[in-house]
């Protein structure tokens, strides 16, 4: 197990490095520079600035400098906001984005599973059709459309929840709802179909023949097996939610990472782009690693240590 974890950790570092490299060269392939819009600056000033940020060096040298910044985990100050380092931005913005992401994934997973199980148990009944209608709507409505709709109805028209910002649990309701609906719908559909399949398995019949209580059959025997595909897709959903937070944060004026990330790309603020990308990719890869561990815990047939010999 420890061997497996060490191996996975090394692979994770490799993955992040590849992502970082790709982002670096892609970002520099886009024309433009951080100082394009500053009309006031004359050519000398611009040259000085570029020299200061090593932008006049060959791309390969810049890449090495960038690798060094990853290794030391110090991405330096932002070009656009010279008073703040990238680490400052991450330290301030990420906890908020993280909070939104975690609450979203929890809401999506729990409501999705409950909805899916109910639909499967009442297969072809009213609850099933209702749940699947919600699921189809959830999948097909983009979260930014849902967000504006929620603000219009629940915040502006009926004044139940605050329309924007991030200061109390009540403020979390609308952004979470907007962000969680899509993943929830996907999880609900997946849980339903896998639950329907599991419920016809022989071991469910065995459990019934033992005279177990229905809830025990569903939770202990059926759900544990039905959750395998859900766990598999969780990694991908996490990525979706992570990037989804950028849009939702913008709509709800939440001071998370999303604003900095989008701004930094528009303004070619290289240190910020690189810092956030590396940070986010590492976070995502780590989450995928946790998902794989969870997979092994759910299904004893998947054994981590067996992979060592390969």
């Amino acid at each position, binding site marked *: 197990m420890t061997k497996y974890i060490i191996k996975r950790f090394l692979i994770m570092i490799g993955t992040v490095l590849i992502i970082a490299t790709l982002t670096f060269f892609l970002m520099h392939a886009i024309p433009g520079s951080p100082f394009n819009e500053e009309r006031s600056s004359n050519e000398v000033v611009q040259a000085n600035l570029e020299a200061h940020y090593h932008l006049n060096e060959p791309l390969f040298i810049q890449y090495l400098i960038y690798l060094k910044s990853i290794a030391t985990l110090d991405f330096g100050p932002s070009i656009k906001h010279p008073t703040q380092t990238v680490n400052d931005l991450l330290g301030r913005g990420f906890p908020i984005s993280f909070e939104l992401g975690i609450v979203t994934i929890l809401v999506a997973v729990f409501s999705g599973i409950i909805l899916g199980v109910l639909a499967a148990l009442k297969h072809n009944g009213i609850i099933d059709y209702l749940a699947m209608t919600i699921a189809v709507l959830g999948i097909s409505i983009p979260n930014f459309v849902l967000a504006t709709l929620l603000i219009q109805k629940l915040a502006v028209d009926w004044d139940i929840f605050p329309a924007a910002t991030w200061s109390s649990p009540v403020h979390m309701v609308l952004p979470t709802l907007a962000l969680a609906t899509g993943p929830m719908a996907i999880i609900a559909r997946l849980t339903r179909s896998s639950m329907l399949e599991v419920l016809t398995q*022989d*071991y469910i*019949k*065995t459990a*019934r*023949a*033992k*005279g177990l209580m229905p809830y025990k059959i569903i939770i202990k*025997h059926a759900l*544990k097996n039905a959750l395998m595909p859900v766990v598999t897709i969780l990694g991908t959903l996490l990525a979706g939610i992570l990037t989804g937070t950028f849009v939702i944060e913008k709509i709800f004026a939440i001071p998370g990472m999303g604003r900095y990330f989008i701004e930094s790309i528009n303004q070619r603020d290289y240190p910020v782009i690189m810092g956030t990308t590396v940070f986010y990719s590492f976070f995502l890869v780590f989450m995928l690693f946790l998902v794989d561990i969870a997979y092994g815990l759910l299904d004893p047939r998947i054994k981590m240590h067996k992979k060592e010999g390969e």
Partner: protein
Amino acid sequence: MEKLLEVRDLEVSFLTYGGEVQAVRGVSFDLHRGETLAIVGESGCGKSVTANSIMRLIPQPPGRITNGTIQFKHKELITLPENQMRKIRGVDISMIFQDPMTALNPTLTVGNQLAEGLKQHTSVSAKEAKQKAVELLDLVGIPNPEERLSLYPHQFSGGMRQRIVIAMALICEPELLIADEPTTALDVTIQAQILELFERIQEQTGVAIILITHDLGVVAKIADRIAVMYAGKIIEVGTKKEIFYHSQHPYTKGLLNSVPRLDRREGKLIPIDGTPPDLFSPPAGCPFTARCPKAMEVCDRVYPLETNLSSTHQVECWLQDERATKLLASK
């Protein structure tokens, strides 16, 4: 011997898109304590449905028990509320299914699955339940039972898994064990071992067994009495001897002829031509008429009455009707 189970006129239908399938059409039989009754017949004759009906494990819908009574120790099971029925399943009546590879939950340890039935129905402590699980694994012949409790089903072979399934069924000491094709999915050598296990368990615990199978070899080994099913009806029932040596129904004879035998010279097996009737619209007369070498006009029109050949041997065939004997004799 005391009567343990009495099934009368059981009828079960399944509503499908194509119409109503009458899977079981008036099945009656008795079972006494400590007895082994084999229900034999080809695929789709309703033997598994009959077994599942006793456990009330027919999926409803589409299945429906439309008529009949099932009395277990003089208690009617068909009308019993589900929560009462739950207290009978696994406690008084246990069931074993065909495929041991899929009958166990792959994500739970064997110990957990063994003990959960006991924990559900009695107030034993975890330690006592574990003790009992070890005892049962030992009974069904699994070596080092204590160490194996923490293993998962995929770590056992097929034969071992079937032993575990049997141990699981016996853990609450049931009076009736229904085994639905318990050896069909196993190798022949393992089959013999499992059948011996059934015999040994019956000797030790006195449990009555209903054995559902299409394998007459299995039947010959462990059954006391045999009921032959065809198209949702029991067409002949008798002791093992009566069925194997004095069978009277042409279908039973056909079945026996299609099994290889050591005491017969001619190497060729004689199959029964044709296929069973469509149970969407079963024939009014004897369902075997179309395949029967001795079919008469009456067979096609009216279903035969039951004829008692002895106190234990009953057959439903016009050839055995008193009037038929006279007719044949006069010819």
